[in-house]
């Protein structure tokens, strides 16, 4: 039975642990007690004291004044929220605050939306009675940063920014400095925002109750007509955004809703601030066809473009067959558009040559987890971080690539949850981890075998789980016990005792939660490593319970959804096997067309087919394969080999430059649909502004072409397409546009609409979980080239930029991080005569690039790392054709190279490639 306490003598039930403030807020209203230092996503702090109430232990009894925000409620408490005494106290405190606050409300950017202003009005301040005294009104404004601003004369010392920087982002950029009346907010050591280590997440600006800390978009201003809730377009975390517009198609600012389950009031700088690409002058605003003679693009009408494409596709289809046509769908676009693209390729063109960028990121995850569990998606939810005792992060750098989830993981690491990082780089999380296993790139399989070995030899197997839930254990055990631990220790370069200790920590935790990223998948043994991770989770019973599981951190906002919708050549919508006759029948009936039952090209196979002449037409939506797929020169050759290259894009990307026809698509802010985040959460993307003149939502473009090619497909609406999807994708059965709400639903969604936070609780999708052993196999890249190319370069991501950077490079982010750099260990740098900031020539068997050196002990000797966000570097010139033997995911993470100080001292211009051979 719940307990009872009283608000102004009225009884209300409550649960143990609630604070007086939250109790009153829940039962009265959110503003029943004024506060200044309290914030929804921060721990109670108790600095402003404005939330004081009187508390008695019996009705009308002797009262004590207490701050309600940090006082826990107890049985039988009588809380008096509005006595003359507390009303006076609140008023007097706010009066004190106003003695050191500018009185320029009317010209302040937060006028009308200032918590101090609101509270001052609520408590009834009419005048400040104190004589003029010392103030801090002469503090300087800080406009140094592309996004963050401060005017600390407006600061009321509530610490909300400091706490947000600490408790939400975990960055420790802000502090209070000085003592008493002189205490003031400092960034770093009295630096500006730009000079400081600020990561521009904006948590402080959102937390600040006044305009003391804000941003260039003045996101707290209420001089805006309307806000729209939508989902971020960048990574797979799926942050909810609240976008403010002025009513005339202009986006003003973005904030993070506190009640959002995916991000709880937080975003990173990409989600919150990097939106100005949407109406950038560089946006493509007209369809264009390349003049074959001049090589110039010529603007055409949509009709002309459609006619050209339709004619070409029909021609190619009739002369070379439908398999000479392929499509690459976009994991940046909504489920509905992905569904339509694969439907167009399968049902209208008549081929299974459809793939998406999951190929180059998590295809091994999907395949490996399907093999082991039956489902290729995260088993648990991010919220399970609250229940875990051990976190294993392998081949992922979430504080850069998945910043909101990364920040949550970092919080757990800092608070001392047992933590293991397996990564060749000393990434940010590794610094806080209990164990960092800094292995050589490409040796995940060896490392995982070592871990399985110690689970078995140290008697840490969860016998019950293995017996009741799995198969293949004895075979695995037999193989694992045979491994040569000396050899694997040498291969990984990690001390076996450290591996053993980390294994013990993972295996003995009550619930251990695994996260992985492309550092696992983008290898020649990517799928095998995933299966071994599944082995490790199953052998320790870490599946199907809270705080555990195998959890891929999906890269693109909707890469989960793109695969779910069937944008892959071997499985159609809903992961159904295209070669299965029953499935084929089902698709044929549903699409009312004959769909082929042989597997189509995967992306690398498309490039090969284009080069050897088998592929004549390629349609790419929102994917810059030239800049981001490996071995750039080969990709360009493929692009130039096809008769028809249709590129549906926002910008003139490196890929678009090679197009035959360019179709200007629309950004996420201009269209509707659903994105599915990395925890299978299907969330509504709502249109914030109308598409720019001359552009169209990508879904409508596909519908137009489908109709022109003789297939009747109704005009694009999210609700309409989603209804169609729910009829063919089994785990979308209960998904309805109107019922998704603000926080969406996690698939599988049953026909009655109930969703699923955790998979495999009682049984696996495939019945029993499958153990499989794989021996370590050195990558061919290393075997073939190590002698002449002794360094290994591995690729990574930076916080500020997203993939090819087409969007982020057209926002203020580019002022924060201006270029790709080469991370190199100080010993290597010294050996090669390279100083920090020097231009370095990195050469692989494929080609060479010049790039600026960043000397850092985050790298081990012999290992280099860089990004491919900038076309000025085009790092993928040097990456290889090696790929996962099973899923064909390229091996971006292991590239043999050699380095020397470059002769050039500056970068090439974007797009200026030089032939290497």
């Amino acid at each position, binding site marked *: 039975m719940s307990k009872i306490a009283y608000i102004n003598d009225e009884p209300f039930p409550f649960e143990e642990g609630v604070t007086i403030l939250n109790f009153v807020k829940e039962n009265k209203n959110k503003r029943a007690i004024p506060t*200044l230092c309290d914030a929804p996503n921060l*721990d*109670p*702090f*108790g*600095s*402003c*004291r*404005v939330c*004081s109430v009187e508390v008695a232990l019996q009705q009308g009894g002797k009262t004590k*004044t207490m*701050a309600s925000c*940090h006082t*826990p409620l107890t049985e039988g408490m009588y809380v008096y929220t509005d006595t003359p*005494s507390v009303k*006076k*106290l609140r008023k*007097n*405190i706010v009066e*004190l*605050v106003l*003695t*050191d606050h500018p009185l320029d409300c009317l010209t302040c950017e937060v006028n009308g939306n200032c918590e101090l202003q609101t509270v001052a009005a609520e408590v009834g301040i009419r005048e400040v*009675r*104190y*004589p003029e*005294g*010392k103030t801090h009104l002469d503090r300087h404004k800080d406009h140094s940063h592309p996004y963050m601003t401060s005017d600390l004369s407006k600061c009321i*010392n509530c*610490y909300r920014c400091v*706490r947000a920087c*600490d*408790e939400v982002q*975990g*960055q*420790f*950029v*802000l*502090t*209070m*400095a*000085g*003592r*008493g*009346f*002189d*205490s003031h907010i*400092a*960034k*770093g*050591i*009295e630096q500006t925002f730009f000079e*400081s*280590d600020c990561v521009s997440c904006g948590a402080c600006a959102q937390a600040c109750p006044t305009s003391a800390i804000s941003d260039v978009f003045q996101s707290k201003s209420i001089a805006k007509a309307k806000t729209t809730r939508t989902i971020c377009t960048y990574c797979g975390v799926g942050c909810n955004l609240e976008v403010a517009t002025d009513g005339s198609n202009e986006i003003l600012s973005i904030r993070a809703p506190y009640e959002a389950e995916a991000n709880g009031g937080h975003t990173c700088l990409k989600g919150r601030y990097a939106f100005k690409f949407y109406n950038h002058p560089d946006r493509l605003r007209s369809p264009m066809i390349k003049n074959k003679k001049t090589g110039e693009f010529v603007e055409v009408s949509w009709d002309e473009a459609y006619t050209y494409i339709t004619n070409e596709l029909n021609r190619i289809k009739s002369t070379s067959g439908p398999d000479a046509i392929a499509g690459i769908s976009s994991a940046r676009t909504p489920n509905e558009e992905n569904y339509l693209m694969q439907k167009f390729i399968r049902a209208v063109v008549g081929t299974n040559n459809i793939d998406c960028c999951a190929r180059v990121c998590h295809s091994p995850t999907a395949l490996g987890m399907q093999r082991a569990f039956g489902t290729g998606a995260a088993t648990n939810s991010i919220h399970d971080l609250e229940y875990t005792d051990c976190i294993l992060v392998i081949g992922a750098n979430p504080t850069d690539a998945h910043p909101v989830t990364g920040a949550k993981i970092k*919080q757990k690491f*800092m*608070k*001392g949850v047992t933590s293991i990082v397996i990564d060749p780089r000393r990434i940010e999380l590794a*610094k*806080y981890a209990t164990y960092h296993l800094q292995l050589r790139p490409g040796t995940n399989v060896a490392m995982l075998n070592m871990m399985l070995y110690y689970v078995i030899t140290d008697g840490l197997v969860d016998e019950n789980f293995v017996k009741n839930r799995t198969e293949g254990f004895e075979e695995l055990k037999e193989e694992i016990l045979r491994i040569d631990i000396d050899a694997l220790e040498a291969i990984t370069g990690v001390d076996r005792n450290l591996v053993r200790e980390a294994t013990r920590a993972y295996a003995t935790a009550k619930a251990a939660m695994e996260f992985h990223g492309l550092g696992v998948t983008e290898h020649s043994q990517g799928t095998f490593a995933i299966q071994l991770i599944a082995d490790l989770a199953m052998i320790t019973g870490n599946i199907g319970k809270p705080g555990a599981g195998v959890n891929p951190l999906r890269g693109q906002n909707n890469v989960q959804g793109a695969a779910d919708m069937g944008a892959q050549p071997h499985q159609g919508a809903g992961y159904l096997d295209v070669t299965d006759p029953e499935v084929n029948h089902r698709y044929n009936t549903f699409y009312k067309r004959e769909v082929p039952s042989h597997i189509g090209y995967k992306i690398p196979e498309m490039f090969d087919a284009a080069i050897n002449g088998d592929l004549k037409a390629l349609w790419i939506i929102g994917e810059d394969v030239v800049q981001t797929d490996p071995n750039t020169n080969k990709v360009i050759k493929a692009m130039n080999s096809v008769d028809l290259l249709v590129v549906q894009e926002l910008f003139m990307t490196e890929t678009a430059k090679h197009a035959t026809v360019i179709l200007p698509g629309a950004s996420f802010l201009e269209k509707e649909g659903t994105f599915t985040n990395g925890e299978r959460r299907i969330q509504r993307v709502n249109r914030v502004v109308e598409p720019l003149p001359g552009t169209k939502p990508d879904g409508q473009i596909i519908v137009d072409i489908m109709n022109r090619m003789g297939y009747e497909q109704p005009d694009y609406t999210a609700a309409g397409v989603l209804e169609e999807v729910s009829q063919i994708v089994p785990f979308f059965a209960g998904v309805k546009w109107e019922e998704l709400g603000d926080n969406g639903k996690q698939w599988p969604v049953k026909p009655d609409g109930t969703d699923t936070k955790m998979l495999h609780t009682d049984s696996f999708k495939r019945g029993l979980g499958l153990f499989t052993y794989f021996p370590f196999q050195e990558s061919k890249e290393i075997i073939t080239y190590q002698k002449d190319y002794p360094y290994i370069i591995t690729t990574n991501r930076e916080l500020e930029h997203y993939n090819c950077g087409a969007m982020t490079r057209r926002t203020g982010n580019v002022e924060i991080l201006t270029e790709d750099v080469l991370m190199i260990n100080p010993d290597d740098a010294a050996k090669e005569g390279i100083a920090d900031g020097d231009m370095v020539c990195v050469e692989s068997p494929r080609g060479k690039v010049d790039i600026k050196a960043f000397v850092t002990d985050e790298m081990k000797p012999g290992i280099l790392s860089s990004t491919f966000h900038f076309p000025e570097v085009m790092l993928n010139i040097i990456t290889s054709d090696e790929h996962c033997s099973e899923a064909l995911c390229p091996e971006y993470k292991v590239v043999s190279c050699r380095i020397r100080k470059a002769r050039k001292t500056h970068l090439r211009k974007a797009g200026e490639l030089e032939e290497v051979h």
Partner: protein
Amino acid sequence: MSKNLSKLSGRKGLENNLFDRLGSEAAETGTIERSTAKELADEYLMGKANIYGVTTFYDFLKPENKGKEIYVCNGSTCLLAGTQDDVYHKISEKFNADQIGHMCCLGRCHENSSFHYKGRNYSGDSINKLDEIVRNRSIFNDDYHVEYYGEQILTGLFKGPEAVRDVMRKAINMSSLQCLEEIKTSNVRGRGGAGFPAGFKLDSCRKEQDDEKYIVCNADEGDPGAFSDRYLLEHQPWSVIAGMMIAGFITGARWGVLYIRAEYPECIRVCENAVRDLVNLGLLGERILDSDFSFKLKVIKAKGAYICGEETSLLSSIEGQRAEVRVRPPYPTQKGLFQKPTVVNNVETLAAYTHIINKGGSWYRSIGTEKSSGTKLVSLDSFFNRPGMYEVNMGTPLSYVINELGGGFKTPVKAMHIGGPLGGLVPLGEIDKINMSFESFSENGFLMGHASVVSIPQDFPLIKYLEHLFEFTAAESCGKCFPCRLGSVRGMEMLRKSQNEDYKMDLELFTDLLNTMEQGSLCALGGGLPLPVKNALAHFEDELKPYFG
């Protein structure tokens, strides 16, 4: 308080303690340089901002402390005695103004004229030997009456490692539960000021299930006028340390921290030596006296912040954080140092544990009053004919302490500020009503606190003393809660303005300010200041009247 910073600091524990590091890094120049802040931030996985924020919080770490050579005491008793103008004048003949800093209360209240030079405190006539002090680093120990009236406990003989060995042997033979029972039976209340039942605190820490617990001795006695902790740490360190060991034995803590204010360098030296002796004899460390009890002890030197006397600020300080007051709950016994169960006890309380274990809880309880058992140390300042340290049974009449033990005043005194700056202002006319016990002071509208007695001479304007109290609070406020951070300054400004300008204070506004601080402040600093001010308004209405409109 940041949980993250607590935990990150806790990773390095006490062996490589961040706060200690800050002290040693600042030893050379008097502050933490930027490059050092960066290195420390990297080492402790924090932000540069955190290191900087901490640096700027403490008087002896902050950038303004750079280059300070000599410090003049600016505590209440030295102010009231009027000795410090002369001290400053003599010092400034030898030092530049930017080499001279201030320390608030060196605890030489029995003779004043106090100053600090290169790790030594000086008082009384020493200022006249400044040449010699600077030339030879000469040491002049201070001297004062130490007497007892009633039972001699804290001032009695308890000396050397042998005494510690004996009491610990006794404790270990008794079992930790029995030791706790003795403390509970004794009914000893915390001597830090609040009078919280000590046995209850030990018990609640003992009940926490955690392998890692701490005992912290709060030796940050910063109350101007109080020097009882200084007496114990300099002359009775063995009983204090044994008390910490007993508390560790009872609660299951394996680490103790003796946090001593930088203004008491002699205490630090004495205690460090005592700890070293005990370690060498195996009386601190693993398996003490061949038992399962292990206990290590670290002496940490504070860096100049009165607020660290507040227990949660003290914990943040040890962690190398800004010493800002934490909200309660969670209480330190649940989540204290490094977020682990911790007992924070005052020096005098811990010393009492030792004697309670030695002689039994019932014996201790038989001394004093029903609600205040045992004895109490009382510090008498230089206005008394016999200044010094007096141990009296709880319940001893205040008038006896003043007139008989202290021998009355040298010069006319109108009131006494008893129990520190946040204690009550007791007019001479009230002393007959009061005896030395928590309850007697509180029933009469005052506070026993540390039982330090600061005399306010007849000719010292009370308005000036009130200004001094506000100024002290403003200087020492951690700045976290609004009422204290802002109220202390606004109060100081009003009081100053009323003396120096054609300005009369609005009594309603001034009363509102006092009520706001009293009701609203997060801790006893802002919350306690109004007591003496209200006492003054009540008892010295005539003297203060001209300043109000």
